[in-house]
């Protein structure tokens, strides 16, 4: 086996970073009056190349680079491809959704691409310091993107809230890393996994685990660390929400999987009940709060909290089954959530004059295509068969049952029923025929027609098509992605010293 040059281990990240630098340089050298939209295409092309680079990494022998700080394996490739796919869809969506006169468009695209560096690196990190810096990169870029609509009151509010609470949570993670270092004398995940069971100071390690869980669970917006979610989703522009509700979350879940399954597998008796409680809390709090929302984006924010809960249910599964179920759920969740926010972007526009559920009344009649897309993604979020959401929930809950957490699965199923209520409310509202004789509806009709809406171009069609295709593929032929998730789970569990040659041709994830 020939040694792999270190640079190949971080090839997608390098491509992302180069793309970001290229965007900044081109942005600075273009005359100020020129449109900045082509920069978005540069970002999209760079993301596509990074996606291929991630897939190419499968041909590398599995192993670590840069003094055992980053890893390439089926696990990292799975999440790299997922994140590249999400970033690509978000970029395509932004290309058409950003109004012509948006400020600093070059910086907008560059921030998305640099954020992707952090997210990808986070999934590949096997050294806690790399993970910490990668998490900061992905977080800070999303803090900034969340406040992009400076002229509104809600934009800066979202950014400030997200920033303050996010920094607070990161401090917990860092404290946890410091305690792990204190207990084991290293921050390398494999070494910690070897040293931790024999370490003298189990109480120190347990405290470290608890603090790190707080930090990571904040990032995935699980209850009780979820309070930032609705405000941020409401204040951030919809294309940004499509990104920040999925990609950083996928990366944070990858870190969570690594921390619990790879770093502290021997503390299963501790983190499994903790995550059980968090899963139940997230589902219940998310769904109950979502029932009461009038604003579509706030409702979807609470639904995202509930989905984090369903996902955490998979962590009750034993070993590889749990990891594979969680990885599959992340892919399914990302596909449908990006899709629904794409539809919200197209309905409400960048400035969001139509933000309430009632504003969606008669959407199916006003714009049949948008209406049916909305209903399609909502059905997937409910978890009805032939959509990705169904198999995601199915694998997650069956992993929980397999792990002996039958009550967790029962609570999850009850919650899914509860969640159907608010998703169906939006479906019913969208499918209601607008009563043209009623004056309020007539005014709503004209408001809908008058609202500035992004021009539907090739980019946004491609974005929505990718999201629909991914949701359908995950719902009808989940086999390929499930195989990829299982080989990913296998590499996460494999002992670090044995270098297993990469699986010959695992089917690439659907996205």
């Amino acid at each position: 086996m020939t040694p792999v040059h270190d640079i190949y281990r971080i090839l997608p990240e390098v491509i992302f970073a180069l793309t970001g630098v290229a965007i900044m340089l081109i942005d600075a050298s273009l005359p100020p009056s020129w449109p900045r939209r082509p920069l978005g295409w540069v970002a999209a092309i760079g993301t596509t190349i990074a996606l291929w680079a991630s897939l190419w990494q499968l041909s590398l022998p599995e192993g670590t680079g840069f003094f055992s700080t980053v890893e390439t394996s089926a696990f990292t490739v799975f999440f790299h491809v997922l994140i590249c796919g999400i970033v690509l869809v978000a970029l395509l969506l932004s290309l058409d959704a950003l109004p012509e006169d948006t400020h600093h468009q070059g910086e907008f695209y560059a921030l998305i691409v640099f954020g992707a560096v952090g997210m990808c690196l986070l999934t590949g990190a096997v050294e806690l310091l790399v993970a910490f810096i990668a998490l900061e990169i992905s977080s800070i870029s999303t803090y900034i993107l969340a406040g992009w609509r400076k002229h509104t009151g809600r934009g800066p509010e979202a950014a400030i809230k997200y920033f303050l609470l996010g920094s607070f949570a990161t401090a917990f993670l860092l404290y946890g890393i410091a305690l792990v270092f204190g207990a084991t004398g290293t921050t390398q995940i494999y070494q910690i996994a070897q040293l931790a069971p024999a370490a003298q100071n189990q109480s120190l390690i347990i405290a470290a685990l608890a603090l790190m869980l707080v930090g990571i669970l904040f990032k995935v917006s699980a209850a009780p660390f979820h309070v930032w979610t609705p405000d941020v989703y409401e204040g951030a522009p919809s294309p940004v929400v499509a990104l920040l509700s999925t990609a950083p979350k996928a990366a944070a879940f990858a870190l969570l999987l690594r921390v619990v399954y790879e770093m502290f597998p021997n503390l299963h008796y501790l983190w499994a009940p903790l995550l059980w409680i968090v899963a139940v809390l997230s589902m219940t709090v998310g769904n109950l709060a979502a029932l009461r929302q009038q604003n579509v984006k706030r409702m979807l924010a609470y639904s995202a909290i509930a989905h984090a809960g369903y996902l955490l249910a998979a962590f009750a599964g034993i070993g590889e089954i749990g990891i594979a179920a969680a990885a599959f759920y992340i892919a399914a969740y990302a596909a449908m959530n990006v899709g629904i926010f794409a539809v919200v972007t197209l309905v409400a526009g960048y400035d969001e004059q139509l933000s309430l559920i009632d504003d969606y009344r008669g959407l199916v009649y006003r714009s049949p295509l948008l209406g049916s897309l909305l209903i399609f993604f909502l059905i997937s979020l409910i978890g009805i068969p032939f959509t990705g959401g169904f198999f995601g929930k199915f694998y997650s809950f069956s992993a929980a049952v397999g792990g002996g957490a039958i009550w967790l699965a029962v609570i999850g199923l009850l919650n899914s029923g509860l969640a159907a209520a608010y998703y169906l409310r939006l479906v019913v509202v969208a499918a209601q025929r607008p009563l043209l004789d009623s004056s309020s509806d007539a005014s709503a009709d004209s408001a809908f027609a008058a609202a500035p809406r992004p021009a539907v171009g090739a980019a946004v069609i491609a974005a929505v098509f990718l999201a629909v295709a991914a949701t359908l593929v995950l719902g009808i032929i989940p086999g390929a992605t499930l195989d990829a998730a299982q080989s990913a789970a296998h590499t996460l569990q494999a002992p670090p010293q044995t270098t297993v040659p990469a699986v010959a041709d695992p089917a690439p994830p659907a996205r």
Partner: protein
Amino acid sequence: MHLILFFLFAGFCLAGAINLLLQTHPINSALSLIVVMTSLAVLYLLLGAEFLAIAQIIVYSGAVMVLFTFVVMLLNAGREERTLGSRAASRIGFPAVVALFAILATILLHVQGLGAAHLGEGLSNAPGQSNLELLSQVLFHELLLPFEVTSVLILIAILGAVALAHVEGSKIPESERVAQK
């Protein structure tokens, strides 16, 4: 001698930190942060981490704090306002912080296998080697990747500052604004 210094500066550090939280005026808080940072530097020095101590003084007490006070002065931030929410937050927050630190302190105090600290001597695990050597070995060898990736982090922060703080004149296109300058 070292013990006296330790208790003196540990006391300063704690007093500064508590004062920082209690002050309502941001500039007073910023000034007490200087006390905290500088006393921490003395504690590092006592533990034999002389490079860290110097860096702490130059970077934190120096650069960061100057920036901090500048920002506070430029924003002309007034006295902190007490609202219902902030009062409730401080009522719940202080006991919560005390409880959290009590738990952490209990855990840290019960940790076995940690030897006593030797004040005023070099690092006990690498006698005869300077801090600088050890640090650069770690920073440019084992932790090369995180060190390099930090540049992306800083770049993002700069991009964000430009994008969020740069005021564009209502709807004037950028070309005209450049021409006006």
